[in-house]
């Protein structure tokens, strides 16, 4: 499969009065054509910063890309100027933002907001752009698009606005779509519709999607592959089956165990992850998750764990996969979902430097 995006060792930090906050600390992943990669993690884990960096939307300064490469179609976008980025944004890469209430311009008609990108990037005439805008609104399932195109955002409901935003993002047929919590502000029934819509459009247009969320249910629904982020690093990455049925990192266990399942009895307490995420001004020595990790080994507080490879597609950053590490039992709720996957290696392999 064709690789559309390769992120290599990306490091982003923000200068603040309290010192520099290392929001992204060495993130590497790649994305194939037509694939959906979900990035999960709690707030402050760096998932939004990672995706905004891909579009170079982080404010610079105070933000700074301190290292790494972002190869989009083989072309590094880190050194690109603002002018060059304008050609990519909205055309090659677009973004759907979390909050449809605030990310549309309240003083512009929905139609005009969709047409903006078309006129700028595709040199369409106003007339042609308007016809296309109506088509797009129709495509995202908005009834009576001919009338809706002349309305303002306040005349749309939350779900409708999110659809309008998807229409804007898709206007120029982007190759990569970044969806930053696109359904978090919506109700479950509307969320279900939006997710179906995105999947449907993806199959029609062969777009690649980076889907950022903290809802594991949504991840299971949309993702082909999943990257779990914690404290600015990817701690586990694999196909959706590998992450949900054979998770290896204690943080992933914690996330899965802290969700109530619909069929469990509600007598037992939820297995909450204790504590709060670390302060990234001074990232802790060793494994950033060690302080909240009931499975932490002595070495976790001393040295950062390397990435281990569990199958062709499955990676985890934990000392527990070291051959000398003690065997541990994951939490009960996770054990219930574990199953043997055929693609798994007999033994976790230490990843070589430089990959």
């Amino acid at each position, binding site marked *: 499969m064709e690789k559309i995006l390769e992120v290599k060792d990306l490091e982003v930090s923000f200068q603040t009065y309290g010192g520099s906050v290392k929001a992204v600390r060495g993130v590497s992943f790649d994305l194939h054509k037509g694939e959906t990669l979900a990035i999960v993690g*709690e*707030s402050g884990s760096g998932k939004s910063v990672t995706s905004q960096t891909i579009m170079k939307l982080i404010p610079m300064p105070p933000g700074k890309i301190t290292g790494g490469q972002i190869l989009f179609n083989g072309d590094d976008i880190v050194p690109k100027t603002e002018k060059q980025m304008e050609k990519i944004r909205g055309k090659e890469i677009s973004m759907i933002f979390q909050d449809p209430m605030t990310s549309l311009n309240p003083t512009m008609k929905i139609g005009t907001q969709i047409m903006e990108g078309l006129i700028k990037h595709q040199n369409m005439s106003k007339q042609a752009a308007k016809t296309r805008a109506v088509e797009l609104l129709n495509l995202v399932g908005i009834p009576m698009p001919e009338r809706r195109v002349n309305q303002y955002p306040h005349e749309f409901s*939350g779900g409708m606005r999110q659809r309008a935003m998807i229409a804007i993002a898709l206007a120029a047929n982007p190759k990569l779509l970044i969806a930053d919590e696109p359904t978090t502000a919506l*109700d*479950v*029934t*509307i*969320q*279900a519709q939006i*997710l*179906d819509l995105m999947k449907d459009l993806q199959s029609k247009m062969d777009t690649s999607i980076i889907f950022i969320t*903290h*809802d*594991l*249910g*949504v*991840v*299971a*629904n949309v993702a082909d592959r999943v990257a779990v982020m914690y404290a600015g690093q990817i701690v586990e990455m694999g196909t*959706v*089956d590998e992450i*949900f*049925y054979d998770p290896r990192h204690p943080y992933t266990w*914690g*996330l*899965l165990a*802290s*969700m*109530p*399942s*619909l069929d*469990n009895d*509600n007598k037992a*307490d*939820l*297995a*909450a*992850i*204790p504590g*709060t995420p670390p302060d990234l001004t001074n990232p802790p020595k060793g494994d950033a998750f060690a302080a909240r990790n009931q499975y932490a080994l002595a070495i976790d507080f001393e040295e950062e764990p390397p990435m281990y490879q569990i199958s062709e597609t499955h990676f985890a950053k934990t000392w527990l996969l070291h051959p000398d590490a003690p065997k541990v039992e994951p939490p009960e709720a996770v054990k219930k*979902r574990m199953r043997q996957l055929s693609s798994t290696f007999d033994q976790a392999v230490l990843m070589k430097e430089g990959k």
Partner: protein
Amino acid sequence: MAEKLLEIKNLKQHFNVGKGNTVKAVDGITFDIYKGETLGLVGESGCGKSTTGRTIIRLYDATDGQVLFNGEDVHGKKSAKELKKFNRKMQMIFQDPYASLNPRMTVADIIAEGIDIHGLAKDKKERIEKVYELLETVGLNKEHANRYPHEFSGGQRQRIGIARALAVDPDFIIADEPISALDVSIQAQVVNLMKKLQREKGLTYLFIAHDLSMVKYISDRIGVMYFGKLVELASAEDLYNNPMHLYTQSLLSAIPLPDPDTERTRKRVSYDPKVHNYSDKEQVEMREIVPGHYVYCSEKEAQTFKAQYVK
């Protein structure tokens, strides 16, 4: 558990939005809340679930209907003294832990505000000791008392909100989407805390949320609201195993589960209120289909539901 703590009778809350238009946010709902239970209230945004909570605690004056707390009406004319008594017994935890704490007050003052108003502490020493005790109950510590809300994370702020609600020893707490603004790993901490407090203090909760899996987990009974009406009310287990109202079915079919296999085969049901096709003669109301399971339906539908019910 048969003792009723709260009876809500035909409660209505209409808002006048000008030009003679009214929004019927809550339109005649009736239910009871028993002592020591957790009643979950779910529905999509705008269905009136938060308005219901706020009307029960008298943040809004009800348009019509009654709220009986221990047999006494909450609404209607009241002397300051009577009101104070109610306010002590009923407390609220708000959705947004960032907006619901006064940024210019220290944590100690926020928590002790209720203690001061109701005169629950004899002197300064007792007051601050109560604050320390509350902080410890919700999993924070003494050192936090003199800090300001901005120094805390979302989960910690929600704990402060809970401590504030507990300060006056209430019997009944309305939690309006207490975990929606929190991260997954922190949500579980707050829910566990609420369950623990319920066990220890015998609290009664009205838990308002749209996250159905969490509501199922914490609630004994669940009410489903749709456009200002309660459409189904049943025990948590029964509602999930035997959803009867079409809206409940559609809501349940939309919850994404953290399991890729079920997600791949998921079938969604959509709901259109027109399918009921009620004629004018039919009386549509809450009917008890099986003991404890109420559905808003017509007589004819009730017969079908009864026939379809599987144990």
